[in-house]
Structure formats: C-alpha cells, structure tokens
C-alpha cells in the first residue's frame, strides 16, 4: 500500500510539474532564432523542417500558419521601446521608418498574436501612410484622430502590434539595428491614461 501511494504521488507530481513546465516554456520563452529589433521580435526561419521542438510547439499552439520565406516576415511587439506595456487606454505612437521593406502592413492584435476583435479599421498599409520628406513617419494608435497618421482604436483589451514585411525574409540583423524599425512610445493621452 505504501509503495502504491509512493508510486502514485510520483506520477501525480510528475504529470503536474511536467505539463505546467511545458506550457510555461512554450508560452513564455522565446524560441531560438529570434530576431529582435528594438521592441519588435520575429522568429527567423520559422517553419523550416529543422525547427526545434519548442518552436514547433509554439507554432502549433498559436493556431496560426506562419509566413513562408517568400511571404516576408512577421514582427510582433507587445511592449514599447522603453519596455512599458502597450496600454489600450493610452495613445501609442510609432515613429521612424521601416527601412527593411517598402510593402508592409501594421495590425492590432492581442498580446498572444491573435487578431483583435474590433469593428472598423484594424490595420494600416504602407500606402495609407503620409511620410515625411526623409521617408520616416509618425503614426498614432488611439481613440481620437490626430493631425498625423491615425489608427483608431477604442477597445480596452490588451494590445499587441504586428508589422508584416512583405518584401522578403531577413536572415541577419540590418546594419542600422533597431533604427530599421519604428520606435514605439506610449503617450499620456487617453481616457484613464497616466493615472
């Protein structure tokens, strides 16, 4: 009886610990081959048959089919450049340029990378943007229209941003580093923001 209890306690603890650690690792840790440019992160070579089991599990659990190398690259940001959270009740500003591609889109998603359930515009196309003379731009995401480019967002759900570059995959860090992608700042404007 004592041995049976000993065995059962080992199995129970192992199942709980093993499952919890697997889910924790898949959901929180970043797989190898991650390309990080400022707050933007993309998984390099995702989908290759050589992908490690954790990347494989991450893709499967995300419920999305990742882009192939001929379909460009998908960068995700869940925090601002200074590390602060992308609060949905505050205005969020993207400034700089996307020097890695001419054709790109920006979409609002949940922090898990799923499309945000919002009515109306949920994304911007590179052609929608009014650029400065040097090719840079400012884009504000928030509840009120701004003088610059604006992506209206009135929801209160946590936010993530997806910048999909369509001109091809990147295999190494660009020379300009994080400057190749727009910086993200969280403003103080917005209902309940700054409190």
């Amino acid at each position: 009886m004592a041995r049976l209890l000993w065995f059962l306690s080992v199995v129970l603890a192992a199942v709980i610990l093993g499952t919890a650690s697997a889910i924790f690792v898949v959901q929180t840790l970043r797989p190898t081959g991650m390309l990080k440019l400022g707050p933007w992160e993309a998984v390099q070579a995702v989908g290759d048959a050589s992908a490690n089991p954790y990347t494989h599990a991450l893709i499967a659990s995300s419920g999305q089919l990742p882009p192939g190398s001929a379909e460009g690259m998908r960068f995700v940001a869940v925090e601002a450049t200074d590390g602060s959270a992308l609060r949905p009740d505050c205005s969020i500003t993207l400034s700089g340029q996307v020097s890695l591609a001419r054709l790109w889109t920006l979409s609002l998603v949940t922090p898990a990378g799923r499309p945000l359930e919002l009515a109306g515009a949920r994304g911007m196309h590179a052609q929608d943007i009014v650029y400065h003379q040097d090719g840079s731009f400012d884009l504000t995401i928030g509840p009120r229209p701004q003088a610059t480019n604006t992506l209206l967002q009135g929801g209160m759900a946590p936010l993530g941003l997806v910048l999909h570059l369509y001109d091809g995959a990147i295999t190494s860090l660009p020379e300009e580093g994080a400057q190749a992608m727009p910086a993200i700042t969280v403003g103080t404007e917005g209902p309940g923001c700054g409190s």
Partner: protein
Amino acid sequence: MRIMNNSAGRKGQSQRSAMVSFGFWLVAMLASAALVHFLVVLTLPIIGRGVLVEQVLAPGDEGPVLYSDPQVLEQLGFRYSDARQDSAYCAFDLRDGAVRVSGELDVPFWSLSVHTLSGLVVGSVNHRAASGGQLALVVMTPQLGRELSEAGAVVPPDTLVVVMNQPVGIVRISGLASYGALRPALQEQLAETTCEVQRFSFVAPQSQVNQQLTAEEEDPDSRQSMPIPSPTPRPDLDQQ
C-alpha cells in the same frame, strides 16, 4: 545511557532512511516530470493542429477541400493577424494522390504556401514566380514523386512541384489588399482558386523508347519477338 544512545541511533537511522526515501522520490519525480515535459512539447503540434484538421478534412471526404468563406475560416480557427490580408485554404490528403492548387489574384502581393498540419512551412512562393499571372503548385509525397517519375509522368508546364513527407497538410493562398474596400473583391478572387487531385499524362520512359528504336534498326523482325510492354502504371490513380 546505553538505552538513550540506542534510541538516538534509531531516530537518526530513521531520519536518514526518510531522507533517502525522499531523495529517491524526488529523483523519480523529476525524471518522470522531464519525460512528461518532453512528451507534452512533442505532442503539442500533433494535438494542436490535428484536432483542427480532423474538423476540416471530414472522414470520407474525397479529394482536397477549399475553404475561402471568411466566416467558415473564422469558425475553423484559420485566422491570420494581418488586417489587410485575406486567405483561402486547401486542406489535402496526399494519400488521395498529388494535389494541384492554382490561383490568379489581381492584387499587388499574393502568395502560396504549403504547410504541415502542425503549421511548419514546407514551401512558399509569391506572385513574382507567376507565369501568365497564374501560380500553380503540385504537392506530392516523395514516394509518389519517384513512382510518377519512373512511370514517365509529365508535369504540366509552369507548375511548381512541392514534395512533403507528411501526407496531410494545408496550402494557403493569400492576397494583400491595398485598401480595405478592395477586400470583398479579393475574397471573390480567392473563392475562384482551384484545389484538386492532379491528373497526369504519361509518356513512355526514354530508355524503353531507345530500346524499341534500336531493336527496329537492328532487326526488323524482332518486333514480333519483343515482349508486349506492360501497361504504364498510374500511381496517382492506383492509390485512390
């Protein structure tokens, strides 16, 4: 005094025994937990996407199935985090034969990508590889590819061949609309994408043709003695 020493000794022995027992328990538990951890990580791709595709490829379905209705895609869980992109999906089972997917979209960027059930990309191609505005892919298993090659199968011109080991998978056809107002037109074009079992035409293998010609040149009467060639195998159809 001796009794007290014996009692303390027994207590110490009992504590050591408990610690050893706990040590064994800990080691056994950690080893088993590591096993469970890797088991969960390795089975997540099978469980995660497998459930979805069992819904998509219903038992008894003959041939590949094309899904392009945005509402159906939403129900099935095919979602993509790009607000300007629309996609159609072709779920296929290569045990039915090779699958041909072709499309022609009138948007600035569009692509085809082949995925395993777990989501890994097997291959992808974009509109720059289109011929006459059309992209066509034939997906097959390596075994079927070898059999078709040996049987002298003719791959249709301007068709890209993708070979994948897993028999079941998904092809995604995606288009990027420049403006939100163009998405309904893009969705209409996606609905016209074709996704079907590929039928091949066959030519006699070159070695057989050469053999026949040589025989005819050397000995005109040898035609009668030539063995009747066996029918050309049709592995793409035999497997159905």
